[in-house]
């Protein structure tokens, strides 16, 4: 199969961006990615845009706002969607576009402007990421879905609220070093444990943020990638898995079957295993989600995720550094941008451009991006030569 690489990356500042609209945020990210690889918008053959919900953008066709503002027309652009995994759908689609021969250089762009609506409305929109017909009627919010997973995980494996809080401490530790992060501040274990209850047992610091932001990744064929200034970061494996819409129909409430499936497919395609991963960005929309991710990805055995964080094995100097960009927890979670932003961070890590957050000698990286309450998960594996 032909090789395809990430050649340029860009990330807008994440946060409450009441200074900018969605398309203006997308422009910030796209411009940075173009400058990163020395290309102009005229050099891009095709674009793929990820936004999770029209209800944040008040548009039937949010992707049109982006290509219009970038002056990209009349070339191809369309929107892809996979709830909180929409960004990874853009990368997967960009990869497929190049692999099919339809284009050589593709811009994958993700954006969300979540603070355009108030918090109860944002909470409602996000709640529809789960089963809006059979579970939302019970008032289950987005944190609520993961609280159901957390309670089941705690009951079966003895995972503790302290271990969840330790995850928040780690991710805020790294978010404090990341200039694009929404919340650039350290959080103590005591503060995390005593924060306001959101959905029992998840507290404020167990939850990711309602953020605005955009991220952009430019992918290119091997031939084009080798002409560009930065060292290519090769896309080695792409896995995509799904699970039931309703949580009630899941075989195991402590795992995301679609995530385990996606990981297996990405490992098979790349010939890379969990022990080979040097750095990972996983979907910590809630602290429990990062624990479940460790287990679904094979970074540890089932039920051992809590111990992995307790032993600090996922810090930058640990056995398998995870979310050293702050994760969704501290960097923020502008839904459509998140999967693209994970690839931005992994590319920077593999190039050695991650500054104080750099994992030494990182050669192989992984992204794990979950949509909704686990209905869709993408796992992508990247490698520098």
């Amino acid at each position: 199969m032909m090789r395809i690489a990430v050649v340029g990356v860009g990330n807008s500042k994440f946060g409450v961006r009441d200074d900018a609209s969605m398309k203006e945020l997308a422009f910030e990210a796209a411009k940075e990615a173009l400058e990163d690889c020395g290309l102009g918008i005229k050099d891009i053959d095709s674009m793929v845009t990820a936004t999770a919900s029209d209800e944040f953008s008040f548009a039937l066709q949010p992707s049109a706002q982006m290509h219009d503002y970038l002056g990209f027309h009349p070339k191809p652009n369309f929107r892809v969607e996979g709830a909180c995994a929409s960004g990874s759908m853009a990368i997967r689609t960009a990869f497929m576009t190049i692999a099919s021969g339809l284009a050589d250089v593709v811009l994958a762009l993700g954006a969300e402007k979540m603070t355009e609506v108030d918090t109860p409305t944002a909470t409602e929109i996000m709640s529809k990421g789960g089963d809006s017909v059979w579970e939302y009627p019970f008032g289950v919010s987005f944190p609520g879905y993961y609280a159901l997973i957390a309670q089941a995980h705690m009951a079966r494996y003895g995972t503790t609220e302290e271990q969840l809080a330790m995850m928040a401490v780690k991710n805020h530790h790294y978010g404090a070093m990341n200039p694009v992060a929404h919340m650039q501040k350290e959080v103590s274990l005591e503060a995390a444990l005593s924060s306001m209850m959101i959905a029992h047992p998840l507290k404020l610091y167990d939850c990711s943020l309602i953020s605005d932001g955009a991220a952009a990744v430019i992918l290119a064929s091997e031939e084009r990638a080798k002409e560009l200034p930065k060292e290519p970061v090769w896309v080695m494996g792409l896995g995509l898995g799904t699970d039931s819409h309703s949580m009630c129909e899941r075989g195991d409430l402590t795992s995301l079957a679609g995530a385990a499936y996606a990981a297996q497919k990405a490992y098979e395609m790349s010939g890379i295993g969990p022990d080979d991963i040097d750095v990972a960005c996983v979907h910590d929309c809630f602290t429990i989600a990062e624990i479940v991710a460790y287990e679904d990805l094979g970074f540890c055995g089932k039920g051992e995720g809590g111990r992995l964080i307790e032993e600090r094995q996922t810090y930058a100097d640990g056995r398998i550094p995870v979310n050293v960009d702050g994760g969704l927890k501290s960097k923020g979670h502008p839904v459509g941008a998140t999967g693209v932003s994970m690839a931005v961070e992994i590319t920077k890590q593999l190039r050695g451009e991650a500054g104080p957050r750099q994992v030494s000698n990182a050669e192989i990286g992984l992204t794990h991006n979950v949509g909704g309450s686990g209905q869709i998960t993408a796992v992508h594996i990247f490698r520098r030569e």
Partner: protein
Amino acid sequence: MGFERFSLFIKHTKIRDFVDYLENGRIMAKRCKGCGAKYYPPRADCARCLGSDMEWVEIPSEGKLLTFTQIFVPPEHYASAPSPMPFSRTRIEPTPVGIIEVEERIRIMGFIPKTDPKKIRIGTSFRAAPQLLPDGRITIVLSPKEG
């Protein structure tokens, strides 16, 4: 009103009779007459054999609690609950919600009213029952089984 009496959002579905059964006190699943697969939430079409000849079957109402939560920051529909007193912004304690398993792989979600989450234990027995609400909507509640 149609199915939105239960679901809030969706009016039209082939399984709208679910609401009528609820109103008569019964929680129903659908079973495929072709292959026997049973579904809750109910479905009009079988995902196993693609058959559409499905029958309503009542499911047991008792089961063990698999998991639960209590939502303190509710979504829009629950955030705007009217205050019971004029000039008051009384904070209404949110109701816990849980999932029980009544048969292998048949799970029912429901509210667990008037219960302190600290006293709820996963693995204990609950009974599911429909409950008619003052506004005409209908939902399902889970009550701890005595003893």
